[in-house]
């Protein structure tokens, strides 16, 4: 990788750690251990399901919140603090700055997810007393969650490159919600007629399809995941994140920073 991108990425990661982003792990640990201990006493037959469902949902939601709230400030904070001018006055291209920021935040989220995954598996071992081969599908669900983070991070960065942090947060969160309804939106588009059909179809393909990346419920029921889905989701997430990142670079390249 380009050493300048690597340097910006590692700085972004260090800044996130300094901002105590990883403190969310404490909340996660309390949540997952509480669920593992308490659910058996207040419910029937769902101890393992709750650990998987709650664990993976928490990994996903915590990560999305971090991706949005850190992502939206990645560019604007540098402008506000005027550190961006110091960086760009050196031999660093604007696109390198954006890509470096993206990898820095993505790295933070991967590290965060890694520690949460350890928590999920520890809680699973506590309630089940042993691992089984079907638990391996949880790793696939975690991988899909990381792919979801790549999309959300790239979108947060895209919006952050041209709007205020507040608006960028609203845009990114709205797209996360709409993305969760992507399959419904395509269904609506298929039923619509005339211009509405084309508008709805365009919107359905423009918003990120996050619903196919959410396989939490099926892995909780130990259902296998098709290899084709893994490959397709990987390609889709990389292409979508790449598209959003290109948009962010394009806007940032033409932005007047004076």
């Amino acid at each position, binding site marked *: 990788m380009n050493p300048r991108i690597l340097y910006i990425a590692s700085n972004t990661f260090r800044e996130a750690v300094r901002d105590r982003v990883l403190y969310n792990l404490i909340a996660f640990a309390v949540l997952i251990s509480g669920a593992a201990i308490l*659910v058996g006493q*207040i*419910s*029937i*037959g*769902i101890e393992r*399901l*709750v650990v*998987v*469902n*709650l664990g993976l*949902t928490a990994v*996903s*939601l915590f990560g999305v919140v971090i991706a949005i709230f850190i992502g939206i400030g990645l560019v604007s904070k540098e402008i506000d603090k005027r550190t961006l001018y110091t960086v760009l006055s050196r031999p660093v291209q604007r696109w390198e700055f954006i890509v470096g920021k993206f990898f820095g935040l993505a790295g933070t989220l991967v590290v965060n997810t890694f520690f949460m995954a350890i928590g999920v598996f520890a809680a699973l071992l506590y309630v089940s007393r042993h691992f089984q081969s079907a638990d391996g599908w949880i790793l696939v669900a975690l991988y899909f969650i990381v792919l979801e983070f790549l999309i959300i991070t790239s979108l947060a960065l895209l919006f952050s490159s041209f709007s205020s942090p507040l608006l960028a947060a609203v845009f990114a969160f709205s797209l996360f*919600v709409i993305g*969760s*309804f992507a399959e*419904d939106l395509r269904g609506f588009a298929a039923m619509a007629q005339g211009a509405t059909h084309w508008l709805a179809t365009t919107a359905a393909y423009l918003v990120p399809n*996050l*619903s196919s990346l*959410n396989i*939490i*419920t099926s892995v*909780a*029921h130990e*259902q296998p995941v098709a290899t084709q889905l893994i490959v397709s989701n990987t390609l889709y997430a990389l292409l979508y994140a790449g598209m959003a990142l290109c948009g962010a670079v394009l806007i940032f390249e033409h932005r007047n920073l004076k």
Partner: protein
Amino acid sequence: MRPSRKITATMSVLLVACMLASVLLLRRLDRLRPDSTLQEVLYISSPKVLKRLSLGYDGLLADIYWTRAVQYFGSKHFAAASHYDLLAPLLEITTVLDPHLTVAYEFGANFLAPKPPNGAGLPKRAVELTEYGIRYNPDDWRLYNDLGFIYYTELKDYTGAADAFARGSRVPNAHPFLRIMAARMAQHGGEIGMARMMWTTAYQSTKDRSIQANALAHLRALRVDEDVTALEKLVSTYKDSTSHLPSSFYDLQSAGLLSAMPVDPLGHTYKLMPDGTVQVRDPDAIPFIEKGTPPGYVAPSPKFLPSDTSGS
């Protein structure tokens, strides 16, 4: 500037005091308004709307609603309630959110089907719930078994039960018992031996302590029903030959109709009533009995024996 030690200490004490006082006050408010925290309300009753609102995290929401259904049933059951208005909607929401949550069908149908206070007294809803479960989990033979059980125990529909067991027996890896049940149900649906076979299999086919305790309690109740029927038949025989009712079981022993003093499954002797009927000494201790109870007896919520639930 260094923080003042005095202010830190004062504020810490005040914080704890305010927190304790607010908790105590809230408890007092709860006592003043006892119904306010336990209202039977489903703020969103549409399962489809809830599924959309879950943003794809429907599995976790289903777990939450299932836990709510369990807690709702438990609290109502404990209070020996005659109405379980929210139980069916809670189970419907749970299973629409996660159609593969088989535990909700297995236990949910058992919550819905029996008459109050043992359940909600909604066997038809229990059948609908289980059929919905079968639609989404057609390879789970236990659901067909549960369905046959509801038809048999609650609806006394032996044809429906035979059909459910027959459908279940065609599922790959189904328990061989289902095929036998389907055949026997068609021929001997109403017999007590059939009921004993069903509860024995229910006991053997699960590791869940509560289901096993329930099966044991039913088996005990069946023995009581059988004993009472047999003893009342002996009383009738005695009356036919002597033209008067026996005053105690000793009369039956003296007449050679009974070899020993009859005892119920808990070891208590049965009571022979002046009208010739037979009753158990403590009907509350033997749940699900249909015979041997005083006239007008209303059964409380069933209490299982500690030995049943401990698995010893």
